[in-house]
């Protein structure tokens, strides 16, 4: 059985967020919810200042506190290491959300894609209402560009009252495709693979660089690893001084 992991090469990352927008698209994620996200930081003071970008997503922890705390086993581990969620079993208690130290689980406070239910056009007779557009294009099933592929292992659009999060695109993995954020990254900064295959691309990178994971000390054993630096700038060597 494979054990899936992702390596994020921060040097290759250009901070463009194509991963996050593509994820929205692939997984029909509503506005305000970020299965794929980022932590940014502006460090220093002018003119000695830089902007740093760290892509984040569900870490698919081997020892996942979200799974541990779920009262209904809606949040569960798959044999391949993916932390999966079953909205059928979810009672919306948000226990997982509280337990996740990475803030990557989101709760659906409202019906998904509410935007597309609005019946008012901006110009009567001349433009569509969102509702009319969604109905004409896709029978009112979420957004007009809703991806039916997502519906293979989860509801295509998750309802109000349950949580949702990144699934490593389990629906794609099932048919032999890599997660969509990985495919969509223009910089190839995300590398996906099987930790159980000694010669997999992820293992090669983890053996070559000093990888680190988020909040390692919590012992959650994340399966998202980071290598290299977002800003590998050169600088003039110095011993400093007093």
């Amino acid at each position, binding site marked *: 059985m494979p054990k899936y992991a992702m390596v994020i090469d921060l040097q290759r990352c*250009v*901070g463009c*967020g*194509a991963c996050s927008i*593509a994820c*929205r698209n692939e997984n029909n994620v509503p*506005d*305000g919810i*970020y299965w794929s*996200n980022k*932590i*940014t*930081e*502006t460090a220093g003071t*002018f*003119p000695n*200042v*830089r*902007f740093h970008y*760290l892509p984040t997503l569900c870490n698919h922890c081997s020892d996942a*506190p979200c799974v*541990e*705390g779920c*009262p209904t086993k809606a949040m569960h581990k798959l044999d391949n290491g993916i932390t999966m969620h079953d*909205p059928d079993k979810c*009672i*919306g*208690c948000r*226990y997982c959300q509280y*337990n996740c130290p990475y803030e990557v689980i989101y709760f659906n*406070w409202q019906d*998904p894609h509410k935007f597309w239910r609005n019946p008012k*056009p*901006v*110009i009567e007779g*001349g*433009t*569509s209402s969102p509702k009319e*557009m969604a109905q004409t294009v*896709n029978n009112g*099933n*979420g*957004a007009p*560009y809703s991806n039916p592929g997502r519906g*293979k292992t*989860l*509801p*295509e*659009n998750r*309802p*109000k009252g*349950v949580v949702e999060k990144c699934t490593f695109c389990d629906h794609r993995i099932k048919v032999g495709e890599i997660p969509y954020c990985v*495919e969509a990254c*223009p*910089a*190839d900064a995300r590398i996906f693979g099987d930790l159980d295959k000694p010669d997999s691309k992820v293992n090669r990178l983890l053996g070559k660089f000093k990888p680190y994971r988020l909040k390692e*000390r*919590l*012992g959650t054993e994340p399966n998202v690893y980071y290598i290299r630096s977002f800003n590998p700038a*050169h600088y003039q060597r110095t011993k400093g001084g007093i």
Partner: protein
Amino acid sequence: MEMKPNQKEGTLKDFLNDYKMSRRSFMKRASVATGGAIALGTTVKPTLRALAQASETTGSGAGEWKAATCQGCTSWCSKQVYVVDGRAVKVRGNPNSKVNGEASCPRVHLALQQVYDPDRIKTPMKRTNPKKGRNEDPKFVPISWDEALGTIADKIMELRNNNETHKYMLMRGRYSYMRDVLYDRMTKIIGSPNNISHSAICAEAEKFGPYYTEGYWGYRQYDVQRARYILLWGADPLAANRQVSYYSAVWGDAVDSATIAIAEPRLSATAAKADEWLPLKPGTDGALAVAIAHVLLTEGLWYKEFVGDFIDGENRFVSGQYVDSELFEEKHTNGIVTWWNLELKDKTPEWAAKITDLPVEQIKRVAVGYGQAAPHAISWLGGGPCMQVRGGYASMAVHALNGIVGAVDNVGGTQQSNKEYTTKFPKPDDFLDEIAKAGKKHKKIDHRGRLEFPALNKKPGGGVVTNNAADGILNADPNEIKVAIGYMNNFAFSCPQPERWERALAKIPFLVHITTNASEFSWFADILLPDTHHMFEKWGYVKAIGNGYRHVTLMQPIIEPVGDYKIDETEIPWLIAEKLAEKGFSNLLDHYKTYIDPETGKAPTNEKEFALYALKYATQNLWDPAKYKGGDKFSGWNELIKAGVWNSDPYPYRKKWSNMKTKTKKFEFYSETLKDVLEKHAEKHNTTVDHVLEVCNYLARGEMVFVPHYEEAFIAGDEKEYPFIHVDYKSRLNREGRSANCTWYHDFKDLDPGDVPWQDVAKINPRDARPLGIKNGDKVKLTSPSGSLTCTASLWEGVRPGTIAKCYGQGHWAYGRVASRVFGKVPRGGSSNDLIPAQYDRLSGSTAFYATTRIKIEKA
């Protein structure tokens, strides 16, 4: 709709290393959380029943990737769209392209929200409120295509019957290379000189420098993978223009193999990953460039294989000293010593430090590092330094650095375009009648070529002065405009000082807008025609360069359109031509019938055939094996349309050395080419070159006019009243100002360093904000001498003190429900153009956007 910002700025450290929290304490926290979570859970009733409904998917779910082209910016990447049952679902890079390959920048995905934007106009409409103005609701009502086209044809016929066809005007915005059907041929055959493009609000000044040094009027390719030093000037290739996808793909390697330095007053996306950030004072790029040139020469770092050397090998470029040009033997360049003597000899780093407010050591370090990397040392000219008043000379100065280090047309340097083999459409000459010929002889509405608007695109008046057309219309100078058509343009939003356009457009008695959305421009229109979306619904092609290749990438209708859209550049002119023929003027239709299908030899009989045949006609050399000239080879049309893109042969380096399209065929540090064209312009107006420069608001006189040099920026506003210099920039999610109606644009706005989701922010350095009592999130009013806007303050260290950075793209008061706060009435955020006065780099005709105005900031 308002979303809560999802920002975690400043918490990186917490996530990387959580020393405070051990596994044990975490478990404790988990148990504490239990009570709260369960209590909360009871307040929300899960609607599990909705699951069954929500999980139903439409159709088979099996789709197909179809070739397409993205025009979200002018990278013009080749794409593929995943189409399921006639519906666009996803977008990715077209692996067949050698320019962008599989790489896709973030903004391409927003095309899905554009094509299915509910606020797209779905049918032709006419205005029923005869009063025109920003505060007048046009009261648009739907009409048939037949009625719309009939009215347009009537108005054109009226002009023709009265021998005043020159009062017809065509305004072009985003185009494909099908443009000439509508922009050129239709305008000419009707009989008007007034086809006005958007080019001068794009980046003509960015082409000015390369043209008057190396004879190339175009954007350059940058060979970043083989460069050892990349010096960027107001260019942000990881976020905006050009080849963002390609550069994003290779930048992670470039940061290893090259030193990257970027001159820009705000910390851009590219600056975030750079080795050196040179946050210079806006408008001083030219000073930095000539100081770097000074160091390159005094330190002996010029590339001798390209520039040549002193005959005896001794470097006589010593600060402050004249050099005898007889002692230097140039190879592939013209005038290095003249340039030194006229401009460079005193332009020391110390001199530049005072002007740019950069440390002397940094200027020296960058100059020497850049020179040591010669010839694999790129000086990357963006719009920043040159889309300024007097920016033409900064454009030359920045580009001339490539000449000094021999990076021009070289490995690891800058390249021109590769050859491509598309063909032009049939000539219109035989279809121009006497009315048309007479009409065409009138002068253009944008005043190009007048003494004060040289617009030197290769010849005097060769370029457009887009933004000045508003003044031409307002003053009926040289004549009034009675009938106008605009397509995929929004000058009432995209041009600085847009209230001039509001008044100008309101003055045109009959205005037609071909557009996807009812925009600010549309607000003044009499007829709206619903346009196709270029990426999914249109036949067309564009050409782009990058990665050492040129591609010609096709657009095709690949989805089921929702509305009754027609293609702007082909179908609509054909339909107008049909109506004109019905009314007794068939020349335009007769001309369009000459666009025969190269495969079948058939002439088009309707608008759909015309759109397709015109494209096949223009691209025949690419797909017809009998006409093969180079690059990718195809067996026929069907194979090309399936691949979606044709690639050129690889770039042939160093073929242009001493074979440039300049007067001297050399790279001109002393521009004989500029001298020639300026003298022609002066002669045309019976005056001297110096007088031309004076009228056009440049400082140079005499020989200095012909060499790259620093000119002090011309910035509007008194420093006391307006203490900050306005810094305009582009979002990495902008699709040329057309994506603000997409929710993803706002939900991910913080992908622009320092910006905030669902806000339009003015970024101000905390040390400037504090004394003014301005805090993060405050509503603020920015005011310049020419206008004002209201937005939100963001205190950010990545902004140079003394400047305020504000992104272009928001501030729509029309366009749609998301782009505006109240459609047709209240803008969301503010448009930078409301601050920028209508000013020009007159030599290139460009509109100035940068270092153009001072502003003040107050709490709103």
